[in-house]
Every structure is written in structure tokens, then in C-alpha cells.
């Protein structure tokens, strides 16, 4: 920490305070829309910390992924809650002790991380000598190629690492995402035949091909357009309640 310049130190504390304050706000704010907005603050601060660590690529990826993800959270918030607070502490009976187990696990994990970081055996270079220039310039200079890595934002290096050293975790993560997608398709398909039996004309329309895409469709879930329009219908319903 001593080697950080003044500007970096100011930015670090700013981002850290914003991050922790935002995270607390996400948990404690009653309205889910505000929670989502505070989540955005948290993610942006994390991206800022990545920039301070000389990892602009990861910072941009963070903003890209969570910017879109956050929009979806917002939509869920709007569709599920209406203008009432997400949790009504007075009128609603909440299960009391559900927070205990995840809380204990989370704190145990945080303790483990802190312990491993603070232990004297912890060696920055052993983790990977990637983004160290500003943290420990003396180490960074001795590492060959670090300047070159920093010069292209770490893109090449991260790509190479992902497809060589960390190939297995990378593929596992993508399999996880694929599973989630297939699960979503199966869950929505299960209701599909009954819906079609009632509202018959959808299928025939799709067989003829929509106006824009012609016959070129090749998507797995061919009810996509219908799903979208159904979404809008459900919006209107929630709006009616609201």
C-alpha cells in the first residue's frame, strides 16, 4: 500500500467506501429498484478497483456483464413487486432464521480469505504476476513481460491463460451457463403444448414464417417471438394492478 501514489490512494478509498456502502444499501434498502441501483454502484466501484490494479479488460468486462445483468434485475424488480417495498416488515410474517446458514457460510469464507491474505506466507507473485505494477513496482519490474501484458490491457494474457492453464474451470463455467439455459428452455417448453392447445393460431403463423425473418429461422425455442409478446401482455397486467 505504501507504494501507491496519492491519486491511487484517494481513488482506492473512494471506490472501497462506495463499494461497501452500496453493498450495505443493496441489503438494507426496502425497494428492490433502489437495491438494483445500489448494486450498480457496487459493481462500478469493483470495476474501478480493477482499473487501479492495472486490469482494465476485467473492469470493462465487469461493467458490460453486470450492466446488462442489472437491467434484467431491474425488470424483475418492476414486474414482481409493483410500487410497494419488496419486504413489508409490519404486515408480513417472515421466516426468521433462514439468514443464519448462508450468513455463517459467507463469513466463514470471508474469514478464510482474510486469513490467507494476511498470513506471512502469502506471496503475490505466486498467485500470478499479472497486475502488480502499481501495487508493488519493485516486483513488477523484475517480472519479465509484465509491461507488455499491461500495455494491451491484459487481453492477450488473459486469453492465453483461459485457454491453457485455466481451461477446465473456464469450460466448467460455460457448461454451468449452458445448463441454466437448457433448464430455462425445458421449463418454458413444458407448458408450451397446453398453451398452444388453447391459443391455437401461434403455430400456424410461425409455420408460414414471420414477416421479417422468412424461412431462415433456426432457433431452438421457436416460440421466442410469442414469448416476447406474452411478456408485454404480462407487463400490461402488472400495470393494471399498479
Amino acid at each position, binding site marked *: 500500500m505504501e507504494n501507491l501514489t496519492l491519486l491511487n490512494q484517494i481513488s482506492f478509498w473512494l471506490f472501497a467506501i462506495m463499494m461497501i456502502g452500496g453493498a450495505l444499501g443493496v441489503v438494507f434498502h426496502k425497494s428492490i429498484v433502489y437495491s438494483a441501483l445500489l448494486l450498480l454502484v457496487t459493481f462500478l466501484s469493483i470495476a474501478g478497483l480493477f482499473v487501479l490494479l492495472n486490469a482494465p479488460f476485467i473492469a470493462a468486462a465487469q461493467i458490460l456483464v453486470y450492466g446488462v445483468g442489472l437491467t434484467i434485475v431491474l425488470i424483475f424488480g418492476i414486474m414482481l413487486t409493483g410500487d410497494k417495498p419488496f419486504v413489508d416488515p409490519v404486515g408480513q410474517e417472515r421466516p426468521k432464521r433462514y439468514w443464519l446458514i448462508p450468513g455463517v457460510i459467507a463469513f466463514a469464507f470471508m474469514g478464510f480469505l482474510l486469513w490467507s491474505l494476511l498470513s506471512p506466507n502469502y506471496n503475490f507473485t505466486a498467485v500470478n504476476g499479472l497486475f502488480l505494477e502499481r501495487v508493488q513496482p519493485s516486483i513488477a519490474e523484475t517480472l519479465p513481460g509484465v509491461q507488455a501484458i499491461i500495455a494491451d490491457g491484459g487481453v492477450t494474457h488473459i486469453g492465453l491463460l483461459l485457454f491453457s492453464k485455466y481451461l477446465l474451470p473456464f469450460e466448467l463455467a460455460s457448461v454451468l451457463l449452458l445448463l441454466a439455459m437448457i433448464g430455462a428452455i425445458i421449463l418454458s417448453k413444458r407448458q408450451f403444448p397446453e398453451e398452444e392447445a388453447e391459443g391455437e393460431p401461434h403455430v400456424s403463423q410461425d409455420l408460414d414464417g414471420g414477416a421479417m425473418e422468412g*424461412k431462415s429461422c433456426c432457433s431452438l425455442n421457436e416460440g421466442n417471438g410469442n414469448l416476447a409478446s406474452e411478456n408485454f401482455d404480462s407487463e400490461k397486467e402488472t400495470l393494471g394492478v399498479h
Partner: protein
Amino acid sequence: MHDLIYRLLMNLGLPVELIFFIWAGLMFVVISLVGQVAVVFMVLMERKVLAWITQRKGPNRVGPWGLLQTVADGVKLLFKEDIMIPGQDKFLFTAAPILFFAPTFVIYALLPFTDKLLGLNLPIGLLLIFALSSLSVVGIVLAGWGSNNKYSLIGGMRSAAQAISYEIPLVLSALGVALAAGTLNLKTIIESQNAGQYGIFSWYWLSILPLSFVIFWSSSIAEVNRSPFDLPEAESELVSGYNTEYTGMKFALFFLAEYASLFGMSVLMVILFFGGYYSPFGGLLLQKWFHINDPILLEFEMATWLIIKTYIFIALAMLIRGTLPRLKPDQLMGFSWKFLIPLSLVNILSIAILKLTWIGTGLKTIQAGPFTFVVPYIVAYGVLAIVLFLILVIFGNIFKRKVISRIQLQQRTV
């Protein structure tokens, strides 16, 4: 001139951090001024073009040929009352236009207008631009939510669905360019397009034609919410959508940011596919034909080429707005998910295959060289893409038929 200012700041004996801040701030002011002026004239241009299409005269009262119309409108908006109706969430209602406006103007700091007029030359510029443009959607959704208005909310929701759907083909097609140039740095992308020395024929619109460019163009029009993809602000069905409740300067921010993002997207398209700040004859004309090497004059020439190309695309976007009808929501979604995304996947695959096979012959990045190289390359690219797409379509249709026949079977049994 840049060196002069920089040296001046250094000689004042300020700390390096402060100089960096002043420098970045100065750059940002210059570039966002460029953006503001561009937007002011774009609004006027749009009104004139639409008037020309519909055989009207358009604004012609304020200033010569109505040139000052937008300035007058801006002044009017500045002095208008800021109306808030009861039931609105004050904080979100105020924060939304700022959240929408800020990222679109930060993007300007990343775009190379000339090789020196460039706020930040980041190695990951392209990625950061997409990240920022995805952030501004949050502003629209919040505006819809904070307005306490049904039409605004529907507009916000539509905008979110649309932005998420069209983000994917947009990023995938730009990834094709990144793959071809081998970098995410916008300046390097421009330089590697110009390295072919064949001007307009060595730009990426030709050497990775037609898919990347067409996909990028259509999804960028959708991304900036313009007709025919302007469902979030469809004035005839949603009373202009998410900005219905906004008045005065807040409305002006929305208005400004929309045009600013159109300008930004057009500049990005020129940078990715049309050689950025280079002339269509290869290199710079002043240097090549007149042997003038004055750096400031060359800067001016670069800026001129970039602005000309950008305004061609802006004019095309306005023509499209004047001619094409609006899509329905399901058509909008179908066009992205069923057509553009498979097409862009095919596109990436064929660029990758060509890069691995063709480029083994000695070129590091994909660039159109002599015609003997270009023509077979384009033919190979086209054939590959068509074959892959046909495979996708045929398999997709077989799968679709299976699903439909199964459904019909179930219907009969039911």
C-alpha cells in the same frame, strides 16, 4: 499544439496527477463540445431531411435557412418549468436522465476523431464502449419506472428487452472486426485497415463484407432506439414512451443523449468498417498528392474525412426513419434472436476459420491487399458463411418441424 499545452503544464511545476487530470478534463471538454455541436446540427438536419421526404419546408424561420432553430429550442427548454406530478419517485426521476446521458458522452472520450484528438487511447477501447452503451439502458428503465406513468413504464421495459437482444449481435459483429485486426484498440483497428494502402478497398466493410457490417449497422440502429426499431418511444402508441413525463432540461438531456448516441454509434461504425480518419484513396490526400506534412493541417484533414463519413451514415439513418414503418415487438425480437444472432455466429466462425487458414500465408491481420488477394478471400468468406448458414437453417428447420409435429400430436391426443 498538444505537445505545446502539455509542455506548458509541465513547466508550471504541477504534480503529475494534477496535470493528468487537467489534460483529461481539457480533452473531454473539447471532445464533448464537438459532440454537442454535432448534435445541435443533427437535430436540425433530421428535421430538414424528414421535411424533404414528406415534401414540407422544415424549420426556416430562426436564422438563415433555420440554422439557429435548435439553439432557440435549447434555450426554450432551459427556461421551461420543471414539472413533477405527484406519485413520482423524485430521486429516480431526476437520476434517470443523468444516468442515460453520462455514459453516451463518456464514449466520446474513447473515440479517435483524429490520431491525436483522442481522450483516452485504451487497449480495450472497443469493449469499454459497449460496456458504457449497455449502461445507459439502466437510465431508460429507471425513467420509465420513476415517471409513475403506464406508457413510460412500457417504453422502459421495451427498451430493456430490445437493448439486451440487440447487444449480442452488435458485440458479436464488432468481435469479428477485433478478430480480423487482432486488437481491441480502436486506433490500431484504423491503422490496420489503412495498412493495405488500397483506400476504400482495404477497409473492413469490404474485406469482411457483407455480414459484419450489415449486422452491425442494423443492430446499432436498434441500439440507439431509432426507427424502424423505435418501439421504446413509439409516439403513436406510447406518447413517446419513457420520456413522456419529462419537461425542461431533463427532457433536453434525453433528447441530447439520443442524438449523441446516434452520432457516437455512427463514428464507431466508421472506425470499425470505413477506415476511420483516412481518406478513401488510401492514406491522407494532403500527404499523398500535395506532399504537405504540416501536422496541424493533417489533423484537420483526418477530422474532415471522419466527419464526412459519419454524416453519410447519419443521413442514411434519417432516410431509413423517413421510409420504413415500425416493427411489432415480436418481429423485433424475432429479427434479433432468430436471424441476426445466428448470422453473426456464422460470421465469427467464418472469419476465425479464414484467419487460421488463409492468413497463414504471411499476413498477420486480415487486410485487403492487392486484388489477387481480396477477390478470392471475399469469395471464400461468402461461400463459407453461406454454407454454414444453410447448415444452421436446414438443421433448425428439421428440428422445428419435429417440435411442431410433436405438439400437433399432443394436441390430437388431448
